[in-house]
């Protein structure tokens, strides 16, 4: 059963960490409308994470697990999100001031992840776990919009000015190798598929690759190769970036445990 709980945490952590990253644009969006769009996106993802953490807490029946405990009192090796989702909004190891955030990276990442999650949530609507199926039904609608939003920006920026094209291409060149992690086998996913409650993401690989290839072609971008080191975030072995994300996200809850509004 731990395998299946880990699978739920994997889904929840993916949503929470990407939400935290997207929320970094709050107040810093390139234009007001995009500021709100990213805030909406982050709040959808936080909603998904909350439902999944609550579900894990209920399944555990240990009387002490809660969504807050799972989100704010676990450390880097406990998080099972894809490494892709914890990366800063830039294409290389550069100085990290807020002004260095590249909206192209944000959009490329949201596109790559949403294109996968549209498939995953769609399939999970038929999960044998009724609670997960209900969460999937809600999340599926949200992520369809996230995909549309990111997809349109990939087109606009890829097929935009010389500068926007260059930066969009750099974003995909940088991020694509991280998507290899989607397709690596893990015990938690295997366990979840076995129970009938989870889905095998590798079944969606062909369709995901087709979506990415079609979109990049329409955006006049070259499809970068996804080779090289395969990241291991979902196994709890993360990049150096996750620690900073968690420090910012968890510090308040840790300074004031059990604080309420």
């Amino acid at each position, binding site marked *: 059963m731990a395998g299946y709980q880990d699978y739920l945490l994997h889904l929840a952590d993916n949503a929470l960490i990407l939400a935290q990253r997207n929320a970094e644009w709050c107040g810093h969006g*390139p*234009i007001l409308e995009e500021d709100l769009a990213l805030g909406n996106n982050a709040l959808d993802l936080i909603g998904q994470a909350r439902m999944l953490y609550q579900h894990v807490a209920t399944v555990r029946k240990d009387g002490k697990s809660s969504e807050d405990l799972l989100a704010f009192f676990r450390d880097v090796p406990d998080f099972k999100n894809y490494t892709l989702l914890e990366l800063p909004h830039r294409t290389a190891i550069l100085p990290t001031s807020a002004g260095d955030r590249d909206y192209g990276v944000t959009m490329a990442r949201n596109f790559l992840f949403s294109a996968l999650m549209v498939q995953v949530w769609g399939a999970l609507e038929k999960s044998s776990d009724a609670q997960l199926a209900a969460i999937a039904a809600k999340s599926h609608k949200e992520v369809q919009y996230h995909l549309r939003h990111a997809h*349109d920006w990939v087109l*606009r920026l890829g097929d935009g000015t010389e500068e926007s094209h260059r930066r969009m291409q750099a974003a995909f060149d940088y991020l694509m190798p991280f998507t290899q992690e989607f397709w690596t086998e893990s015990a938690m996913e295997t366990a979840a598929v076995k129970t009938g409650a989870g889905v095998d993401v590798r079944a969606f690989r062909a369709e995901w690759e087709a979506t990415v290839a079609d979109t990049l072609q329409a955006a006049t971008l070259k499809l970068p190769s996804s080779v090289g080191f395969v990241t291991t975030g979902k196994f709890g072995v993360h990049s150096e970036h996750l620690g900073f994300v968690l420090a910012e996200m968890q510090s308040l809850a840790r300074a004031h445990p059990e604080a309420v509004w």
Partner: protein
Amino acid sequence: MTATTALKDWPLWEVFVRSKQGLEHKHCGSLHASDAQHALQMARDVYTRRQEGVSIWVVPSKAITASAPEDKDAMFEPAADKIYRHPTFYDIPEEVGHM
């Protein structure tokens, strides 16, 4: 792209939101966007975050012909003394309800 170039390069759109099936679309604001689909998406993110709507229209602002403020007197003043155009001199039966 900075906000100022975006505002300069992107045309202005007027946004109309229908709050419920059967009601009319109401003007709720305007925004800058590069094309109609873009404007629609931005309108969704800006104007329907609190479940304000079930349908959105966007219209290029330049497609709207507006009356000039200085024509206000000539256009609207003549209607001011024609109160007989308001059907307030009739007793409306209760069962008719709101008119």
